[in-house]
């Protein structure tokens, strides 16, 4: 075996593989892969213990571009495969990479179960509200009226909210990011990584070819400050160019409302403080949509609980203690036997 001395500190470049990137020029995926490489460098994640597992789709090509372990599996099943990998070796640091079709169309059930079971991995969903790889059909997150090759008259089914779905599945960590926020996104990734258990991150990602500008209403530079709210635990839920707006709870209607501080008797005291352990608040934040509400990004919910693989291995350890013999001959001879001679 060659003796390779690892460099003192791994840089962003050390996390990039030698494979030519095959996304369309201008695709939002480029910035996400960069954000991920930055994240790993910031975390100094050991490449040999880091595994990217993906399904199928443009997003799912992601593992090829990382100089870590990677498994490009089949459509919709990455969560299930990753569960097996994590159970088999809890030491591995697993990131699942998936698209909105991969995760929420064919793979919705596996996503639900990996979240419910709370397997310790990071599940990153690139939501471009479209099927990129198969050339632009509408997806379960596409807005009503989306014209696509399979819906030439416009789509008619209500889109699923990835984040609300994750909360409904019992996820213990739910966050959101945007492809074009190179500073915010790595921070979200790091929070997801720090959370022990299944961490769900939805990234609003622009597909320049089949769904260009689908998030412009809140990501375009000129409107971003008014249309986004970066939530942070224990910090007031304020936004706007001058941080002049905030969210207030209307407890009669049990719904949020946007207020401008100083207007209509709204004071800073009225502004809700984000509590990332409150699931109902997370639901309220996740529900917010333009044009009347800002879109919430950051960690909407984080409420750690026991992880699945820990419990699995605890049972194995207990059984090993209770039944120390692993001699096959003992096993075969358990129960009634008799001798013929």
């Amino acid at each position, binding site marked *: *075996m*060659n003796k*390779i001395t*690892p460099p003192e500190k791994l840089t962003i470049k050390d996390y990039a*593989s030698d*494979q030519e990137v095959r996304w369309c020029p201008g695709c939002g995926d480029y910035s996400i892969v960069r954000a991920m490489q930055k994240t790993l460098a910031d975390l100094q994640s050991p*490449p*040999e*213990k880091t*595994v990217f*597992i993906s399904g199928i789709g443009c997003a799912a090509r992601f*593992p*090829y571009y990382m*100089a*870590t*372990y*990677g*498994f*490009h*599996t*089949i459509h919709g*099943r990455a969560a*299930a*495969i*990753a*569960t*097996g*990998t*994590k*159970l*088999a*070796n809890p*030491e*591995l640091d697993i990131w699942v990479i998936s698209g909105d079709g991969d995760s929420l169309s064919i793979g919705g*059930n*596996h996503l*639900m*179960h990996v979240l419910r079971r709370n397997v310790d991995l990071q599940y990153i969903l690139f939501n471009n509200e479209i099927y990129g790889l198969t050339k632009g059909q509408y997806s379960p997150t596409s807005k009503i009226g989306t014209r696509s090759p399979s819906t030439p008259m416009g789509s008619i089914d209500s889109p699923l909210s990835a984040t609300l779905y994750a909360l409904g599945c019992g996820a213990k960590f739910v966050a959101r990011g945007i492809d074009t926020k190179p500073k915010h996104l790595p921070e979200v990734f790091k929070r997801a990584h720090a959370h022990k258990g299944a961490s769900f991150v939805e990234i609003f990602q622009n597909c320049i070819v089949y769904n260009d500008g689908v998030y412009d209403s809140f990501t375009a530079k000129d409107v971003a400050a008014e249309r986004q709210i970066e939530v942070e635990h224990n910090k007031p839920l304020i936004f706007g160019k001058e941080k002049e707006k905030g969210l207030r709870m209307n407890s009669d209607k049990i719904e949020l409302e946007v207020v401008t501080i100083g207007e209509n008797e709204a004071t800073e005291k009225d502004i809700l403080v984000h509590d990332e352990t409150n699931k109902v608040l997370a639901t309220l934040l996740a529900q917010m949509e333009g044009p009347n509400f800002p879109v919430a990004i950051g960690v909407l919910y984080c409420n750690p609980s026991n992880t699945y693989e820990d419990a*699995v291995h605890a*049972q*194995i350890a207990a*059984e*090993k203690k209770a*039944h*120390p*013999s*692993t*001699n*096959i*001959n003992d*096993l*075969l*001879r358990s*129960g*009634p*036997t*008799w*001798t*013929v*001679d």
Partner: protein
Amino acid sequence: MEGSTTVAMEGAIREQVEDVVVRFAGDSGDGIQIAGGQFTLTTALAGNDLSTFPDFPAEIRAPQGTTFGVSAFQIHFGSREIRTAGDAPDVLVALNPAALKVNIADLSKGGLIIVDTGSFTERNFKKAGYNGNPIENGSVEGFRLITADITRNTLEAVQEFGLSQKEAVRCKNMYALGLVYWLYDRDRSPTTGWLNDKFGKRPEIANANIAAVNAGHAFGETIEASGETSSYQVMPATIEPGLYRTITGIEAISYGLVAGAQKADLRMTFAGYPITPASAILHSLSKLKQFDIITFQAEDEIAAVGAALGGSYAGTLGVTASSGPGIALKTETIGLAISVELPLIVINVQRAGPSTGMPTKTEQSDLHQAVFGRNADSPLVVISASTPADNFEVAIEAVRLTTKYMTPVMLLTDGYLANASEPWNIPDADKIPKFPVNFLNDTNEFSPTKRDPVTLARNWPIPGTPHLEHRIGGIEKSYDTGNISYDAANHQKMTDIRKNKIDGIANDIPEQKVTRGEDAGKIAVVGWGSTFGPITRAVQKIRLEGHKVSHIHIRHIWPLPKNLGSLLNGFKKVIVAEINTGQLITVLRSQYLIDAQGLNKISGQPFKVSEVEEAIRKSLEN
């Protein structure tokens, strides 16, 4: 009973018989399977060879007394080699009218029926679909009969132990067992011991059950004394010396997987999704966690095979098990496993189909699915078990091949084999050769698709290994680098490699042996899987008549043993007996261009020996 002589015994004169088939039957709440299990153990301890067949109702707990709620357990035992659970019962224990109704047609001519008259009520006749009392209206004509009010007798016998009525009635099965113990002169002490063990914390229940066994036995002695009926004796069989146990197919397969993983020096990731009759493997492995087995009940079959494959990816032995419809769901992922060349064992406990079919009934109809049932050119290894205990060896073979060749292995067993049990000469596990896996950690000219020049298996670098970071996936990959490749010549090369790797395994499996008979002759009866018992017995019987008929039983379905073609060519006729409409025969005909004829049965039931015999006779005549 094939041969019978009368011998003088101490005290009584017992008719000696060579082999007997007894079927216990009753309502599913009657504890039939427990009685059957105890009788099996005792019979094994008495030195008989034996084979059993439990037959569960499809319903969880059908309304009491109905025909579809009848549970049965059949045991065939004898002083000769026993290979099947028997064509037709010589003795039927019917604990209610429905049990009689469902089973009487199978009884051998002049067979003995033991009925619990306590359950022979008008209500139960109606539920069973009888018009009046079958014992009185001629329904049992031509059979011998022992009638006993087993219910009442049991209640009396256990009265002193102060059980609830419900608990007391539950001892009925032990009374019936005691009666059959008397009939075949069995030692009651193993059952007594078992009862004391099982109900250690509630001795009153143990004692009541023991009292019931004894009461049933005493009842037999009474009627014998009165000359009504006589009892029998079945001498011990000549059995290879060794330490024995009874083993079900499920136990054998589970133990085989555990042993195989140990021989391969691997931990195991078993992922399953419940389905009859495969769930039992999940249950059984769930209790063996100390062997470093991760058991995972997944959300569906796709997730199960995915998690197993994910487990293999991480460097454990990935195993999954299901039955036909579940296997169908797994095929896409099996294709991925073929493409990325990782170990994966897929166990199919076959059941009657198509679709949901008859989940509790057996069939061998998933061979086509195993060999051909995937998109694209996607060869894998298919092996099969032929008796309950054989599952042990086959499971180990599956582990050997999947790890040595980095290929999925499909292991075919079936509902009959899974639930049936047989006495097993316990092997010495230490003598089973090891085949430890070596994960790659040589970084020299590393490529994930580098191959062993002989086996053509790719090497196995696992996540966690420094400096071997790489990517795998289901897209076609370069032969040289493992990177994605759409190159035409490369796809040809990779397709060829995948095929040649599997074809080459023919060099690493035993040549096909003839189970019984000569290496050439008039007729070869070819079988695979659970038809082993009836075929081998039928061939034995025909051979006793002097015919040159051989039995060839195939374990390795794909690739087939190297010598199989020439072996089959040595026979004038080849009969392929299968519990399907003709599946192995497709493979044999296409491979060897042999005009094999099918013997097929698809009724959810195993072959009877007589059916196979008859087919051979017909073929001999032509």
